[in-house]
């Protein structure tokens, strides 16, 4: 608390306060942040971490994730003497904003953000500006357990190489949730064109989160995978030419779909949970989710009717990985690494895969675990709403982040009036 800046606070109340503040704003200087690989030994890192409080900036719109983060906090406190303080975000971009604000103010040390739950465009924004600590993942003992060969999204985040600047903690795959009390499984749409037909037959009963939300953009990207003339082009950055040609069928499809959506396609829920509430309220009958155990977990938490079920598309659905990253100026980098490492602990991974907790698939390669550790991942009895193994089809890699940015912008241009 008693750093030199507090004396500046005293000065600022003087008569020239305004001028002083204005000029300090004018002459803010940027200092280049250089990425430095983490070279210290793990023992040195854990020793330095003891006693630290890690400010974990995480989207807080989901109570189950908040509870899981609280549990992680209890565990790392017990095991390593590190305290976790969740900083509740409405949008992950708020944390990016904060890191940038601090850089604006020249605060290159003792930053307020220690750890961010992040992926995709937010990661790319920080990586691109050199505002991340690391590479650091190789320093963590549990990182060796991560599946980096079959689960490609652990090392390629929206086609951007992770380069050890963020550490994976959970896998996601697109599914669609419906209420089996109202719709029979054989009538479900297994392709994007069938989805349009279904929505025409059930007007007002389908929606998607606003396209500014990652899940809303994913709704369109999933459609794009099936509608694009050459889906391979999605793995490269979008250009004017490829974007126009590739997305033309998407917009034609969406123009037909939109009038059949909830609220005539004029308004959209702001987030996935807001969308789920509409299903729970009975306003809609089907939704897109990014978690194969969405239905099971929501049923267990009484956030969806017990008759909710999931299904996938015949040609597979998009999957990605959630990561944690550490800003370049984080005050408690060691503590943050201890938390990131614990997230990869088989105990933590098994817990988050439990549908009554989070229900997200593990990022680990189960073959690398001991027999006892593997047993932690065995499915629990009595859980309803889970897909059968293999039912969801293959995992499609996320398109390059530029596709999402452009789709969002184009959607706003077309449908935000």
């Amino acid at each position: 608390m008693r750093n030199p800046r507090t004396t500046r606070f005293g000065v600022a109340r003087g008569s020239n306060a305004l001028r002083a503040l204005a000029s300090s704003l004018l002459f803010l200087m940027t200092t280049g942040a250089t990425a430095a690989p983490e070279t210290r030994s793990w023992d040195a890192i854990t020793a330095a971490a003891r006693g630290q409080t890690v400010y974990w900036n995480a989207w807080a719109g989901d109570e189950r994730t908040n509870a899981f983060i609280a549990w992680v906090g209890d565990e790392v406190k017990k095991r390593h003497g590190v305290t976790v303080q969740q900083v509740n975000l409405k949008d992950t971009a708020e944390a990016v904003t904060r890191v940038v604000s601090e850089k604006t103010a020249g605060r290159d040390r003792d930053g307020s953000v220690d750890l961010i739950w992040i992926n995709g465009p937010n990661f790319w924004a920080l990586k691109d500006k050199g505002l991340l600590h690391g590479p650091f993942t190789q320093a963590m003992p549990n990182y060796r357990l991560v599946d980096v060969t079959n689960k490609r999204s652990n090392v390629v985040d929206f086609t951007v190489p992770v380069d050890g600047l963020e550490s994976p903690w959970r896998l996601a795959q697109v599914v669609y949730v419906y209420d089996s009390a109202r719709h029979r499984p054989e009538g479900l749409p297994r392709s994007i064109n069938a989805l349009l037909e279904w929505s025409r037959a059930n007007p007002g009963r389908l929606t998607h989160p606003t396209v500014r939300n990652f899940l809303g953009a994913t709704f369109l990207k999933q459609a794009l995978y099936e509608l694009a003339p050459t889906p391979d082009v999605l793995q490269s950055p979008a250009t004017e030419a490829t974007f126009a040609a590739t997305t033309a069928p998407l917009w034609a499809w969406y123009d037909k779909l939109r009038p059949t959506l909830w609220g005539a396609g004029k308004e959209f829920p702001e987030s996935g949970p807001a969308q789920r509430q509409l299903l729970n309220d009975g306003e809609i009958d089907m939704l897109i989710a990014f978690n194969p155990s969405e239905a099971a977990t929501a049923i267990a938490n009484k956030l969806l009717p017990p008759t909710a079920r999931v299904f996938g598309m015949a040609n597979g659905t998009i999957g990605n990985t959630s990561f944690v990253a550490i800003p370049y100026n984080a005050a408690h980098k060691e503590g943050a690494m201890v938390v990131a490492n614990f997230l990869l602990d088989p105990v933590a991974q098994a817990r988050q895969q439990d549908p009554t907790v989070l229900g997200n698939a593990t990022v680990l390669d189960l073959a690398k675990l001991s027999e006892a550790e593997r047993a932690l991942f065995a499915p629990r009895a009595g859980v309803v709403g889970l897909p059968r193994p293999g039912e969801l089809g293959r995992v499609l890699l996320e398109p390059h982040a530029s596709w999402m940015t452009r789709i969002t912008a184009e959607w706003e241009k077309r449908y935000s009036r």
Partner: protein
Amino acid sequence: MRLAPPLTITLFLVPVAAGLIGTALPAFGVLPAIGGRAFSLEAWRALFAQPGVLTSIRLSVQIGLLATVLSLAIALSFCALMAERAALRRLSAWISPMLATPHVAVAVGFAFLVAPSGWLVRLVSPELTGWDRPPAGLVTVRDGAGLAMVAGLLLKEVPYLALMTLAALNQVPHRALRMSTAALGYRAATGWFKVVLPLVYSQLRLPIFAVLAFSVSTVEVGLILAPGNPPPLAVLAARWFADYDLQRYFAAAAAALLQLLVVVALLASWLAAERIAARLGTAWCERGVRIGWTEGLARIGAASGAVTFAAGVAAIALMLLWSFADAWRFPAALPEQLGLANWRAQGPRVLGVVADTASLALCTALVALLLSIACLESESRRDHPPTRHAMWLAYAPLLVPQIAFLYGFQVVLVQLGIDGRWLAVAWSHFVFVLPYVFLSLADPWHALDVRYPRSAAALGVTPWQALWRVRVPMLARPLGVAFAIGFAVSVGQYLPTLFAGAGRIATLTTEAVTLSSGGDRRVLGVYTFLQAALPLVVYLAALIAPALWFRHRKGMA
């Protein structure tokens, strides 16, 4: 004592002024950290290139004007018909708690009240409507015209303007005037509008402006009740300030500055409209009509007042019910099961949030109260009544849109190295707490007969003793109310907590807004109910404490 006014003004206006500069610079391209080093108009180009931005501006103006005009009309109708009734004193005691309830709590409850799957539809379904599920195609929340947001704002602004009108009425001989108009044959509301309103209007101007500025530029109510595609201008600016695309800051700053211009333009138009209304009103008075459509309109207005009040109470009650609910699905009008599970699950986390919320509110309200007393006392000692300019100054933080200066203020706080700390949040709350505390205390202070402190002085006590032993005890009740209002204002702050707190400091309000987008109404119920209850408890304490203190002194409380 003499230093109090300049110190106070510095403390609460520097954030506004510095914040405006810190927002204006990026709006014109200057934000060195992300490459903005030279003056440019690119931000404005980007702002106006945004699809639907004109709709955003129109939506803001529409919502703000409609909410202000309707809440004023309803509040005035209510006072016109009720001002002389004996029941009114009791009634105003009922209205004031609504004033202490944060906008967010009311908005969240209101959304559940009127949604297609909400409580009103559930109440009559399926029995009257035949709906065993919510109707598809009915849009009642976040509608494109912003009517849900207007209605949600009315729940809070009608009580506010009604109480401001009642306070102003105390300073004019309204009963005598009404008797005169009645003797001349004017019906109740007609006589009130023709004779009493012109006398009190000038005192209502600043409160009306505060309502207008808030309704046009509120972010938190907009996030819950306004449409999002496109959203009102202030929500758009807030969204961009939080965008991962850092270049959006420039456009965000431009949007925030434009928000300020919109408010200024609306206030100016309101002043112009006042002149036209005064002309028309004079002509109306001169025609001498005794009975007309005014009576009917006033009755509709007063009835709407009762409806908004009932809706406000229902909104809070429903969130309380949700906090005890297990599953509660359409079309059940009541939860299938009630229990303490949500409170137990949220308990430990909620306690910490309540502690932060309460400590911020207690401290800022207390400091604001002490500084207000110091300012008023210093002014009384110098026999220097506040000028009209001083009142405008006090209202400044309420008239400047929050979004227009909080980002700039955040940059200042980062510079000072105190952002994300309790102190920074307390300071940002203080900016809004002080005006309310000062304004609510100023009238009773000036109303107190100066001969009391003078008699005390004649009896030989020092000015300090006269203050603490005569003025303060005699003003115990207004002091308590001013403190409670300050407390409530602090509890209700969303954007200041978010920006100054760097997200590290969570209050019941920031949690409620975050949860309102997250979807578990049972948890949301816990937070919104506490958010509404906390200021209420302090308000009741402020009313009861003087009564206890002076229980042996008749007429003091």
